């Protein structure tokens, strides 16, 4: 009986997670453009990956990161893999440190979202632009990477309560 109840709960959690990913994906490509500040929008999927992984701290988070990264790749229409890889590593990092965190609250999530967004956006720039000779590093850092990190840091406050419920 208890086993049935737990498995039913697990199924519902998977269903809610899939619906949540679908919703976040749709928002990321539509309404979120309305929140554009200095030509930068928050990356809801990446924020979700980091917060979810910090909350879950298990293999499920890794899979979650992998799926969200792949969705970013597929929606972007570029070669598949870069976002998949970056999101998986971000999830791995978060799962790895989640055990060591003394206090796992919203501010900790905000800090790691900001920090990992910096790394994520810098690597995105390197993979898609720098190695193909597009240059403009100063512009990329000041007008894309840093604003994106700050924006994701702030936007975590909006998503954190929902993700916390989803991951629990």
């Amino acid at each position: 009986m208890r086993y049935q109840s737990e498995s039913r709960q697990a199924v519902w959690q998977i269903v809610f997670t899939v619906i949540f990913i679908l919703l976040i994906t749709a928002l990321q490509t539509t309404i979120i453009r309305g929140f554009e500040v200095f030509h930068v929008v928050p990356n809801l999927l990446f924020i979700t990956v980091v917060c979810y992984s910090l909350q879950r701290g298990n293999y499920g988070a890794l899979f979650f990161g992998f799926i969200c990264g792949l969705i970013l790749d597929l929606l972007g229409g570029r070669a598949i893999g870069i976002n998949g890889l970056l999101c998986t590593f971000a999830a791995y990092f978060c799962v790895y440190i989640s055990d060591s965190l003394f206090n796992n609250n919203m501010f900790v999530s905000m800090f790691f979202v900001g920090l990992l967004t910096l790394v994520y956006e810098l690597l995105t720039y390197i993979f898609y632009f720098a190695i193909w000779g597009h240059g403009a590093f100063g512009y990329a850092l000041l007008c894309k990477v840093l604003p994106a990190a700050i924006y994701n840091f702030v936007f975590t406050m909006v998503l954190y309560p929902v993700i916390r419920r989803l991951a629990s």
Partner: protein
Amino acid sequence: MGSRKKLTILVLIVTVVIFVMMAVSFVARSSSAPGHIVGTVVRPVQQFFSGIGHGVSGFFRFFGDMKDYQTENLELKDNVAKLEEQVRSLESYKQENERLRQLLELKSREAERDTVGCEVIAKDPGNWFYTFTIDKGSEADISVNDTVIAAQGLVGRVTEVGLGWSKVLSIIDVESSVGALVSRTQDFAIVDGELSLADKGLCKLSYVTTGAHLVVGDAVVTSGLGGVYPEGILIGTVSEIQNDSMGYSRYALVDTAVDFERIREVMVIRSHGSHS
């Protein structure tokens, strides 16, 4: 085996899987089946949110004004709200009417070309690229490399086609390169997207002929060379002329005719697969 060790092994496996996928997608130059599935599943939700997204600014403005209304008479508040809503709605209809009128005029201009009108339903999820999704795909006989235009001028080209959706690469994207012609001087050049210019709606006009006498305001149109874009479509106007860092060659900045931030309706010039 420790939990962290298991986790590391799992990450390594996932990494290998991703590298295989990267290699496959790089060879295929398309996201193929998985991309089509995600595109088709997400499209209805995107269409729904796209409609809401267009009015999101007005929605927040409405809530911002609520505080002021509280200090006013209740009846007056209702009237003002209704009238404002009406004005906003009429303004939106007026703008839509204007855009559709322009598109109709364009349609008659482009009568000899086989075109189909489409609506922009989604934009690139990130901050680096300038691609967007339109609401028509293979069912409307749109194919890869079809030219996309708006009432004002050239928008880009189709890069991926699915059932009920297509992805469009804007001319301001770094991956875009368009064969161009300066209308007044008939000089050939190339219009490229640049990372640092894209947000300002600018492109770089490079490979300008040495003796070309460009002036600010010169219209730049597609040359038709390269086989992707038909000739004579307005790209934009020259806004600045500069020398490169070595001083050997010149390039110009082109202010694109299309406002990519506010683009909502476009037209696809169908080639019926003759590009691919």
